[in-house]
């Protein structure tokens, strides 16, 4: 699983790089467009100037020097130039004069080429030096701007259009004006270099900033992770700090703390269980072993009672182990079930009969109210285990001269067992179904290892029945109910 930091970096950094590149391109091309627009404006202005060029006084003595050329009568020199003159051999000199007139005021970096049309020849500025500016695909009255390159490799920005003037039968002259683009190209190269350099620097800076910000922002998560890594079975009582957690991860911290509480409770239960199990198994085992060793080492100390003790202890051990095995089978749902129609009253009668002797011995009254009409489809074997364990538990822990109440089909329960439990507290109720839980924490020798109610609960679960427990006025009521009761 990729880390949040890596994910954010792998998303934000390329996004920033893309945005930077787009911004760089945008700046570059807008600047380029601006430069070209400036050039185009310059070329257009030159074209206007060229169109309205004034005749020089020394070349036209008849012209009134004070008379301004009307705007609509521009380049009159070309307009008034006789056709014969333009076509005659004398035109060589005339062309030179025209060229001189046209191009004198042009600055040196301006290239100009004029086609007079219909074999009228063309004029070009000296800086073209025999070369030609590439003509546009088509000439029109509307000016076109385009980039071109001279034969010597000089990049040019060109303006081309027909001058809207009539030269008798001739076509209007086609004019190409061009200026050198090298300065702009150099500026654009500098700009591109700056943009690339600046972009790289910005990317690096942004990366650093991003890493730093992510580190700062994700620190609470890192701390949380470190705290979680340090948690083990010994530190389950510790909790993650909810106060210092940022609002974004506070729900996670709250959930983690809740899980920790559950884990702590489970571990405590398991620890209690393993301690209780150790006690339940080791104490009788130690007694058997010690009794046997003493009898072997000091035979004169041995008596038949020792064998009786060993027999009782081994039976008790076997009962505990059988209970554990049964519980394990119930909990892992590996027990096979044989579902038949069962009358709980009949089963309860059998179970009561099993415990009648013990109850009588302890002077406990078993009060039964068994409704024979109740029936259900279930596994009678598991139902018998539930009833036996509940009755056995009640008889074991009820004080002398008290009553154990056993009901079938009464109130809202399928089966109910109620007995006096003056020692039990409300907080003990949560532990009643825990494996090997006993109110007597000293676990003084008893016929009960504390497995009965756990087994009953596991059997009820296996049968999709519910076992509920409540303490009412010092009487413990354990009821077996159907899930939808």
């Amino acid at each position: 699983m990729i880390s949040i930091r890596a994910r954010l970096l792998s998303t934000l950094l390329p996004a920033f790089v893309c945005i930077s590149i787009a911004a760089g391109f945008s700046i570059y091309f807008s600047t380029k467009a601006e430069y070209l627009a400036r050039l185009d404006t310059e070329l257009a202005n030159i074209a206007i100037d060229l169109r309205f060029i004034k005749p020089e006084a020394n070349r036209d003595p008849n012209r009134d020097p004070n008379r301004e050329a009307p705007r609509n009568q521009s380049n009159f020199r070309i307009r008034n130039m006789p056709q014969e003159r333009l076509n005659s051999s004398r035109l060589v000199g005339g062309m030179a004069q025209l060229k001189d007139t046209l191009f004198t005021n042009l600055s040196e970096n301006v290239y100009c080429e004029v086609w007079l049309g219909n074999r009228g020849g063309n004029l070009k500025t000296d800086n073209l030096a025999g070369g030609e500016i590439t003509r546009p695909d088509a000439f029109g009255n509307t000016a076109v701007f385009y980039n071109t390159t001279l034969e010597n490799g000089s990049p040019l920005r060109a303006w081309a259009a027909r001058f809207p003037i009539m030269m008798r039968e001739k076509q209007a002259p086609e004019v190409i004006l061009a200026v050198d683009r090298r300065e702009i190209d150099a500026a654009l190269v500098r700009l591109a270099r700056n943009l690339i350099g600046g972009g790289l620097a910005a990317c690096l800076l942004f990366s650093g900033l991003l890493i730093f910000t992510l580190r700062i922002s994700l620190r609470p998560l890192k701390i949380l992770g470190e705290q979680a890594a340090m948690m083990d079975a010994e530190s389950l009582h510790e909790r993650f700090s909810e106060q210092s957690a940022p609002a974004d991860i506070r729900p996670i911290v709250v959930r983690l703390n809740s899980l920790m509480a559950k884990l702590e409770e489970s571990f405590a239960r398991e620890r209690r269980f393993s301690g209780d199990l150790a006690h339940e198994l080791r104490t009788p085992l130690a007694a058997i072993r010690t009794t046997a060793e003493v009898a072997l080492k000091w035979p004169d100390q041995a008596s038949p009672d020792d064998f009786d003790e060993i027999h009782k202890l081994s039976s008790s051990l076997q009962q505990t182990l059988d209970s554990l095995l049964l519980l394990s089978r119930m909990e892992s749902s590996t027990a096979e079930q044989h579902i038949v129609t069962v009358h709980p009253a009949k089963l309860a009668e059998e179970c009561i009969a099993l415990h009648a002797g013990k109850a009588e011995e302890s002077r406990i009254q078993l009060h039964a109210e068994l409704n024979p009409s109740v029936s259900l489809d279930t596994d009678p074997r598991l139902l018998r285990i539930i009833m036996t364990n509940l009755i056995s538990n009640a008889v074991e822990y009820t004080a002398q001269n008290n009553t154990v109440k056993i009901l079938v089909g009464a109130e809202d329960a399928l089966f109910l067992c109620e007995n006096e439990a003056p020692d039990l507290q409300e907080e003990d109720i949560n532990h009643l179904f825990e494996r090997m839980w006993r109110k007597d924490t000293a676990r003084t020798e008893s016929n009960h290892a504390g497995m009965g109610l756990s087994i009953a609960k596991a059997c009820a679960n296996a049968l999709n029945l519910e076992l509920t427990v409540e303490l009412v006025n010092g009487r413990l009521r354990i009821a077996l109910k159907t899930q939808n009761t």
Partner: protein
Amino acid sequence: MRILLVEDAVSLRKPVVKALKASGYAVDETGDGEEGYWLASEHEYDVILLDIMLPGMDGHEILKKLRADGDETPVLFLTAKDTIEDRVAGLRLGADDYLVKSFAIEELIARVEALGRRRYQKSTPVLKVGDLELNSSAKKVIRGKTELKLSAQLFTLLEFLMLRAGEVVTRADIEEHIYDEQADPMSNVIDTAVCALRRAIKTPESDAPLIHTRRGQGYIISEPAE
């Protein structure tokens, strides 16, 4: 030596008591924590064997109270709880040893002996007074080159006197350490036992008296004066 065993499982307590008594110890026993604390406070035991899970008052609580009372009697925890945490908790409270159930009875007796020796600041199980040598582990008594056969009770009495060799041991001390609660304090059982012990440690090769009576005070075991 006198031992107190506080263990609520009767089935285990009975054989342990038997084994300890057979090894020559005087043993008082109870299955209740509060009674155990009362016995430990009222009598001077050489070693106390304590279960942890006890009704009334648990083993940890008993030990804590004893140490708070200034009672430094060696305590051995005898319990089913075997985790490191349980052992550490017990030892931190001031227990001297920890034995997890189930155990070999020989091991329990060996540990009790070791704790008893520690109480009298003896690091070796072999005690010597003159030419009399007692090995408390091997349960052997040798005088000169002769191995003596002593009953468990006489062995315990001799061991008790030799552990405190050179010191006057009062009758009350002997009664407190050698005899359990069932002994009749009004009887002359101690004088009789000491007399029997004097006879028992005499050999044809070596009959110099080692146990001397200090009138009105008690008994002392020491090398015979030259």
